[in-house]
């Protein structure tokens, strides 16, 4: 069953790869000319086209693209003259750490606040949370990032303005460079998840097992943490899992605000330099990653709730 869920990924990933391939093929312009420049000799161009496989029929190119994808070869970058897979591998850790840190922010903020808001439904605290989430959803993440930069980097000088420090440079530097981007990226997701946690917990609070738990003398804290949270967690995991995909997409924008050298910057450079193999490769790798994460979330239900089986 689990293997089946993972196998079901393949057609989707092949479809994303096909869409990316078709997109690239529609582009006017000759990659060989882009790489060598306009004054290259016809013989050089022909040789490069042969190297790139451009002189083969379209179906053979398509088959080669899929086969390359399956074996981790994504073609050659036009601007860097280097394998696309390597370029992506070098930048993926930045994007993934940003998305993971933002996910942590999301969960740490949304779970307790959402639960608390549900426990005190329609109290001033709850209404405050609801208003804050409505605002959090309306504020675009890159603007929030700019505001945070204005407050904490320009005015207070607590955090660096731009850039990234790898984990190897020390945990402190890594965290300092990632803190504001993670909050920026996580805020809207936290708002959304908080609304969701509140709704799921409210629903659970109305059930009979909660009355039973209270009736047998359990404290409100034990009811909330021991019973409500556990049952509310299943829909919450779904939403949180889906959000990881959005976090990866949002990371592209937030990277730009804080000057982080991640996949987003690679894609943008690729667009500006008309380096389509890079754009194509990065887009497919990220889409495949999102599909994989969604499948893992499906599998996680089984672990959280034995009543659920993956069909």
């Amino acid at each position, binding site marked *: 069953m689990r293997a089946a869920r993972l196998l079901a990924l393949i057609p989707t990933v092949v479809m*994303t790869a096909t*869409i990316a391939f078709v997109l*690239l093929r529609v582009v006017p312009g000759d990659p060989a000319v882009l790489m060598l420049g306009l004054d290259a000799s016809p013989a050089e161009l022909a040789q490069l086209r042969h190297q790139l496989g451009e002189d083969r029929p379209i179906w053979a190119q398509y088959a080669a693209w899929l086969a390359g994808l399956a074996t981790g070869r994504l073609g050659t970058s036009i601007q860097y003259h280097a394998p696309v897979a390597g370029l992506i591998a070098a930048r993926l850790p930045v994007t993934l750490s940003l998305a993971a840190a933002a996910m942590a922010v999301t969960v740490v903020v949304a779970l307790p606040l959402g639960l608390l808001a549900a426990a005190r439904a329609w109290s001033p605290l709850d209404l405050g949370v609801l208003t804050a989430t409505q605002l959090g959803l309306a504020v*675009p993440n*890159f603007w929030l990032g*700019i505001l945070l930069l204005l407050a904490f980097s320009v005015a207070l000088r607590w955090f660096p303005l731009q850039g990234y420090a790898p984990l190897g440079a020390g945990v402190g530097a890594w965290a300092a460079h990632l803190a504001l981007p993670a909050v920026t990226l996580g805020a809207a997701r936290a708002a959304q998840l908080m609304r969701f946690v509140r709704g799921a917990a409210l629903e659970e609070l109305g059930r009979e097992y909660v009355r039973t738990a209270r009736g047998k003398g359990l404290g409100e804290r034990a009811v909330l943490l021991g019973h409500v949270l556990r049952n509310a967690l299943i829909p919450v995991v779904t939403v949180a899992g889906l959000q990881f995909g959005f976090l990866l997409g949002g990371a592209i924008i937030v990277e730009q605000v804080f000057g982080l050298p991640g996949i987003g910057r690679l894609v943008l450079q*690729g667009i500006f330099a008309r380096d389509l193999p890079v754009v194509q490769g990065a887009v497919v790798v*990220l889409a495949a990653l*999102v599909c994989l994460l969604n499948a893992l979330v499906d599998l996680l239900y089984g672990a959280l709730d034995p009543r659920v089986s993956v069909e």
Partner: protein
Amino acid sequence: MSRRRNRALWTGLVLLGVVLGGVAYQLLWGGGSDVRIAVEQRLEPPSPSHAFGTDDLGRDVLARVLGGGAIALKVGLVAVGIGLAAGTSLAMVAVRWGRWPARVVGAVMDGLMAFPAILLALAIIAVLGAGYVPAMIAIGIGLIPVFWRQTRAQALAIEGREFVLAARGLGATEARVLWRHVLPQITPLLVIQATTTFSGAVLSEASLSFLGVGTQPPLPSWGRMLLDATRALGVAPWMAIFPGVALAVTVLGINLFGDGLRDALDPQLRRIAGREPVA
């Protein structure tokens, strides 16, 4: 309950009215002040003559915020139009005619859905080039599967209902059944979906312009203004504040309006899961 929700509708309408009023004012009486460069008055803080200050080229930030609103709304409307028209008609065709066309369309839609929206938009812009028209098309294409999925689910549910069978039994053509009987049933849902995706489309335009691949200078765009603002953060914070406020007010207005509309049109309806905006 309903009074509280109606408040959402009216608050949304008021916010949107403010935005539309400002945009209309700039279009009718602005006289191109949103693109007029005046280097001698660059980076001036807010003052009576420039309520929102001026930017690094001396342009009036208020005029550019209002002009940017016109572009944001235009991109949003056209993008939602593309998604709505293409998604709904594809779904109708898929439901009524043929098995394998429906499967092929379905597979392509699933593939499109697999991309985070911003990535799909960037891939399309890589092909079409930067600009607000490509951005509009790219955002619209990303919305097609959203409308496709919803219309298809609704149309399938309606397919077997008595009034559809009756219409068919009376000899109505397939096109007539779809147009006169099925479509009116799902119109309220589509209106709500269009509203929720509209705020997402406005956000997407701003995001793409912020990345530098959406609306291009000298045209004003909230996202592009915020990008320019990041280069003058220390000296001209007003450049970073006002376009963001305008964007947030617009999105909040559309969201509240959509919430209110949903309850007004169908109190039974649960929240519809639309495609996430990219931001």
